[in-house]
């Protein structure tokens, strides 16, 4: 009876109630989508590189090594000699390794020298491989493979001839040795998209006439001659390493970090990614904070709506009282209302959220490289809903208690 009449009462105020439900649903949806984006951003971020057990670099901090080797941000302080790299590569624990060489750029995009193993070994998002979308991986010395974002932003196609600049921001170009685009990669949502990839030999080739970071004046070796030279790398910047058994990771890491010939660092990418996320994760907490405030505001709003309806419902309360309802029943009716409104809101907000996610998911993936998993409500979401409903009912206690006093004091005298 109580439930039936409460529904009838809400139905009689359909417009106000549906506006309230709509407003609450929107803010709940905002909270849920921020939460979703937050967790997805975290997963996407920590999934930037996967299945790589160790990253090797010269002696530096773990975050710095991660930044330049994976995110192509900043520079290495030192290179690693090929001899050291080879010695590590030949250790029993190592199953595979991919050397990379950084330092040059093209129109603001970093150029990375590596070998074909990179395309095979670099994994992201829990084991996805890099795929080529157009053309082929590099074959010739002067072939270049572009990340998806590079090709898209610079509007480059297969066969386009490009010049690599020396350093990250310099006006000196390796214009004597032009490259040709041989392939364009599929979008990965990782920094690979913003990378121009060439072979390690190509990096050596463009620096033939260079010494200590400067071009040797007057010296200009013709391309034909360069092609005949031994271009095997003498230095690399970093390397990705996979081990045969996970149990040996720490042993190998310690061995590398204590390597006597050269000051080296090796890091566990997962750990470093997590550390880095903790630094940039302040933003996520901010987002979360904002959405909690939004929810709180809506709750207050709901309470205010119930509150403002109280005066006109004072007579209704008096009728309930005259029929024998105790003041507790009056409180119960208002809390039941809050329950129904907040419960409906959670349902509506879930529907909104999934419509929104379905619309935005491809766009977010393409633009920001954040893959949002559209799934049924998680346990955590349900918990949030339950917490929300409980707090909605707690907040509605404020108008309910006021109605309680009204109903006690009004008695037979009913104000209209």
């Amino acid at each position, binding site marked *: 009876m109580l439930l039936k*009449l409460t529904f009838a009462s809400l139905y009689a105020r359909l417009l106000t109630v549906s506006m309230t439900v709509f407003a609450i649903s929107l803010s709940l949806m905002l909270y849920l989508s921020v939460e979703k984006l937050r967790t997805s951003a975290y997963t996407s971020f920590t999934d930037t590189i996967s299945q790589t057990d160790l990253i090797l670099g010269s002696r530096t901090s773990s975050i710095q090594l991660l930044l330049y080797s994976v995110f192509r941000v900043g520079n290495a302080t030192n290179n690693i000699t090929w001899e050291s790299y080879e010695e590590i590569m030949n250790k029993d624990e190592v199953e595979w390794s991919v050397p990379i060489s950084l330092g040059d750029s093209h129109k603001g995009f970093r150029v990375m020298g590596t070998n074909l193993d990179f395309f095979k070994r670099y994994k992201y998002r829990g084991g996805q491989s890099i795929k080529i979308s157009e053309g082929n991986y590099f074959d010739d010395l002067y072939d270049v493979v572009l990340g998806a974002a590079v090709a898209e932003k610079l509007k480059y196609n297969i066969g386009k001839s490009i010049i690599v600049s020396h350093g990250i921001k310099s006006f000196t170009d390796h214009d004597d040795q032009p490259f040709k685009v041989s392939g364009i990669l599929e979008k990965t949502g990782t920094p690979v998209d913003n990378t121009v990839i060439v072979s390690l030999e190509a990096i050596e080739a463009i620096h033939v006439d260079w010494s200590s970071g400067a071009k040797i004046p007057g010296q200009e070796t013709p391309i034909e001659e360069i092609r005949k030279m031994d271009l095997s790398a003498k230095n690399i910047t970093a390397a990705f390493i996979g081990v045969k058994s996970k149990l040996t990771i720490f042993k190998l890491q310690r061995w590398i970090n204590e390597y006597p010939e050269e000051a080296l660092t090796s890091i566990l990418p997962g750990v470093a990614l997590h550390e880095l996320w903790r630094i940039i994760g302040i933003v996520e907490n901010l987002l979360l904070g904002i959405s909690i405030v939004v929810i709180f505001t809506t709750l207050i709003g709901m309470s205010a709506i119930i509150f403002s309806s109280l005066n006109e419902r004072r007579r209704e309360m008096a*009728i309930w009282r005259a029929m*024998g*309802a*105790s003041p507790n029943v009056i409180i119960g009716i208002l809390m039941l209302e809050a329950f129904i409104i907040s419960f409906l809101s959670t349902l509506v907000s879930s529907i909104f959220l999934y419509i929104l996610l379905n619309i935005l998911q491809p766009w977010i993936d393409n633009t920001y490289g954040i893959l949002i998993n559209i799934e049924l409500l998680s346990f955590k979401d349900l918990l949030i809903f339950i917490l929300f409903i409980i707090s909605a009912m707690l907040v509605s206690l404020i108008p309910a208690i006021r109605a309680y006093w009204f109903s006690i004091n009004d008695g037979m005298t009913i104000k*209209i």
Partner: protein
Amino acid sequence: MEKSNLNADTIRINSVKFHWSNKNDFKINVPEFNVARGEKVLLLGESGSGKTTLLSLICGFLKPISGDIFLNDEIINNLSAREKDQYRCDNIGIIFQQFNLLPYAKVIDNILLPLYFSKTRVQNIKDQKGTAANLCKSLRLPDEVLNMQASKLSVGQQQRVAVARALIGNPPLIIADEPTSALDKSAQSIFLDLMFSQISESHSTLLMVSHDESLSQRFDRVINLDDILKEGD
């Protein structure tokens, strides 16, 4: 006031005093007031004379400062708030001036509402919906109103539904607070005829409050509120 048999009284008030804690100027003081079982009493008084306060005291909404109120020989001013609420819904049918009904609820639900709170009244009837329908029929309400929303009814119809609600489950006392004031003269007369015949049938006691002396001849007894109130304390 003759009272040969104490048990025959539905309402008995002994030296009841009441004043609002926040309004010092308003006081009521009722040395003695009795209504016998089955009696139909009209209480005449101008607005602001304390009619509603007296009704609130009898219904147990307000607690007297001193004195005793008996309903069916049970002293109600000492009951707890919860017991008073229960007592009220078990024993008293209340009809207000107007806006008696939950506007959003169906007429049938409005009529059955007191039964939701009172087991005693439920025990008095076998078939809830049938009883409600019969009451409506006796009060000349068309059958189809039962499933209509209360707010869709005319004021006169709403007041009759209020009578049906007050009477359902045969509470011993009906309290009516100017139930005809929202009706025009002819509707008033029809309404009172119907209400009286129903109340007589259920052998309930009626205490009705009004400022309209012309209604007097229908009642067993007419009392001026001023006669039972005593000024000062």
